[in-house]
């Protein structure tokens, strides 16, 4: 649920009890005021009646409310003295409404020519049920109006206010640190959004810097390793030549050389990976994948023969794709080498090229492998101690760089497929 709908929801929920409580308080306050003014009116009427009674005592004859809104009733002195005047509500038949309606009665006493009277004055009352009904009607109207206004405000004004926020968020959603893209923010008058934008920009800059630094670090570290590796390898080679050594000694030295060689390859692979990621291969040309595959297969001829493996190439349509030639070579070489080294000997490797895919399949003793792990760095699936565990990671990095989809699937055979989306 969006933030603005969220606030709308809570506002409408909170408004309901607030308006209800307010309505009750308002109702009683108003009622109190009405009573107050009715009672004042009644008291005033009594004073007027007293005046009239001294001028025209005949009104003292009125004993009921048939003709007038007042009535007199003679009372004893004792009652007069003990009487407490009062206001009360009662019901009275109203001709116009043809119903009993509430009226306010004021009961008091008076003295006229030594006689004592009880005086009753009535006035019609506010009809509470009608009042409540009206009040509820108007309040419901008010509530609906307010909810509509809130929704309107949220959806039109707030949407406008939140625009810079959504602008930034939508970019963050697709942001990839390894791609060299910038995040732009919309300027806004709202402090919080301004703060958010500044923070985003700062954070991304920081992440980018440390990402670059780390990439640079790997590259520099690999470079720095080259010289000591070279010194060690060459020293051993010279030592091997310059000293009469026994077979065992020679083999021991050769094994050290082998491992240094492995270290060198590992280092080169790391260097290549960081170079790919550092976008250092900018030159591109149209690469003929069929031709390239044939070349690489012939390079692996001897190794394949040695492993008694045959490589079959089936071409339906050759693929021409614009990319860096060296990287294309590395990409295919790694995949073919992977199939050759991990495939069972005495079997065959099948490479198929059609309209928009290049795939290679081989048999192997191992079962289905996890695609995610397969392409991650240093994830060695086989026990082959000479593989660096970087070959497929490099292929994946190259494929990603050129928007090719490199996937793995297992269907009796291990199949690696390169998917070309558009022919470039």
């Amino acid at each position: 649920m969006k933030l603005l709908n969220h606030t709308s929801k809570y506002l409408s929920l909170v408004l309901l009890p607030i308006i209800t409580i307010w309505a009750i308080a308002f109702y009683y306050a108003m009622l109190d005021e009405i009573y107050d003014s009715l009672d004042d009116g009644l008291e005033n009427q009594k004073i007027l009646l007293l005046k009239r009674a001294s001028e025209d005592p005949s009104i003292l004859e009125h004993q009921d409310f048939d003709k007038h809104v007042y009535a007199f009733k003679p009372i004893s002195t004792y009652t007069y003295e003990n009487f407490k005047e009062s206001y009360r509500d009662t019901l009275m038949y109203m001709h116009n409404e043809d119903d009993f309606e509430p009226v306010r009665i004021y009961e008091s006493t008076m003295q006229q020519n030594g006689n004592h009277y009880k005086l009753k004055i009535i006035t019609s009352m506010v009809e509470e049920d009608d009042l409540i009904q009206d009040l509820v009607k108007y309040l419901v109207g008010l509530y609906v109006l307010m909810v509509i206004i809130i929704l309107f405000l949220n959806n039109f004004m707030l949407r406008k206010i939140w625009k810079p926020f959504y602008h930034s968020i939508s970019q963050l959603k697709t942001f990839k640190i390894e791609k060299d893209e910038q995040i732009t923010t919309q300027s806004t008058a709202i402090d919080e959004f301004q703060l958010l934008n500044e923070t985003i920009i700062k954070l991304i800059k920081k992440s980018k810097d440390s990402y670059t630094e780390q990439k640079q670090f790997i590259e520099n570290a690999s470079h720095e390793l080259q010289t000591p590796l070279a010194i060690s390898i060459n020293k051993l080679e010279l030592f091997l030549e310059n000293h009469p050594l026994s077979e065992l000694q020679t083999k021991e030295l050769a094994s050290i050389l082998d491992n240094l060689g492995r270290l060198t390859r590992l280092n080169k692979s790391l260097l290549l990976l960081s170079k790919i990621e550092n976008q250092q291969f900018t030159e591109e040309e149209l690469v003929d994948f069929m031709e390239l595959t044939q070349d690489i297969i012939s390079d692996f001829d001897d190794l394949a023969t040695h492993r008694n493996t045959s490589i079959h190439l089936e071409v339906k349509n050759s693929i021409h794709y614009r990319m860096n030639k060296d990287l294309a070579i590395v990409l295919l070489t790694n995949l073919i080498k992977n199939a050759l080294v991990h495939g069972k000997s005495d079997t065959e490797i099948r490479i198929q090229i059609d309209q928009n895919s290049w795939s290679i399949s081989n048999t192997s003793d191992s079962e289905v492998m996890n695609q995610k792990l397969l392409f991650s760095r240093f994830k060695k699936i086989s026990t082959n101690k000479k593989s660096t565990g970087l070959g497929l990671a490099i292929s994946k990095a190259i494929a990603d760089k050129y928007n090719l989809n490199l996937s793995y699937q297992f269907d009796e055979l291990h199949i690696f497929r390169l998917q070309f989306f558009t022919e470039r």
Partner: protein
Amino acid sequence: MKVLIIEDEPEMLDNMRRTLEREHYQVETASDYETASNKMGVYEYDCILLDITLPDGDGLELLKQLKNNGKNEGVIIVSAKDSLDDRLKGLNLGADDYLPKPFHMAELHARVNAVLRRLNFKGQQLLELGNVSINPENREVVVDNTPIDLNRKEYDILMYLVTNKNRLVTKAALAEHVWGDHIDQSDSFDFIYSQIKNLRKKMEHSSFTIEAVYGVGYKLNLD
């Protein structure tokens, strides 16, 4: 043959000097820009091994200086930075080859040898070794006046072993030179053996033998 090695790493320099001296080159060394610049200005060399990352200057500047002086020495750039940029820059400035570190000593010999041959004899010289003569220009091998038909890999192996005659060439160095860098991850270099076997058979009347050294590598011995 005079070779100048420009390299700031003392041990690296020492290794290269020792291996080249064994090949009977006259080796001079320089470990900084200043010394290198002076030596290059005063003396003539046949081949210069140039490390382009020197502490007190850019090695490529030395190369420029050399070419500006109209000198025609062969220059092989040696670099720890195997970058395409440097390689192209170096070759465009007139370097003859680019050798990224780390390399095998055998590879160094092969590169130096190739550069010297190209420059001094314009590639026309026949390589004579006992009763074998090799023409690097058209890749012809003749044993006792009988042409021998070698395939590309057999020829490359032979040439590499001849360049490094009487020296142990490890299988790794041989594989990288002949089959290329990408063969490296193969689980063993045993596949080399079948090519060696074929080569031995074709060269059985030659005056040298290809000796296998404890399964570690090969050595071409002159009888």
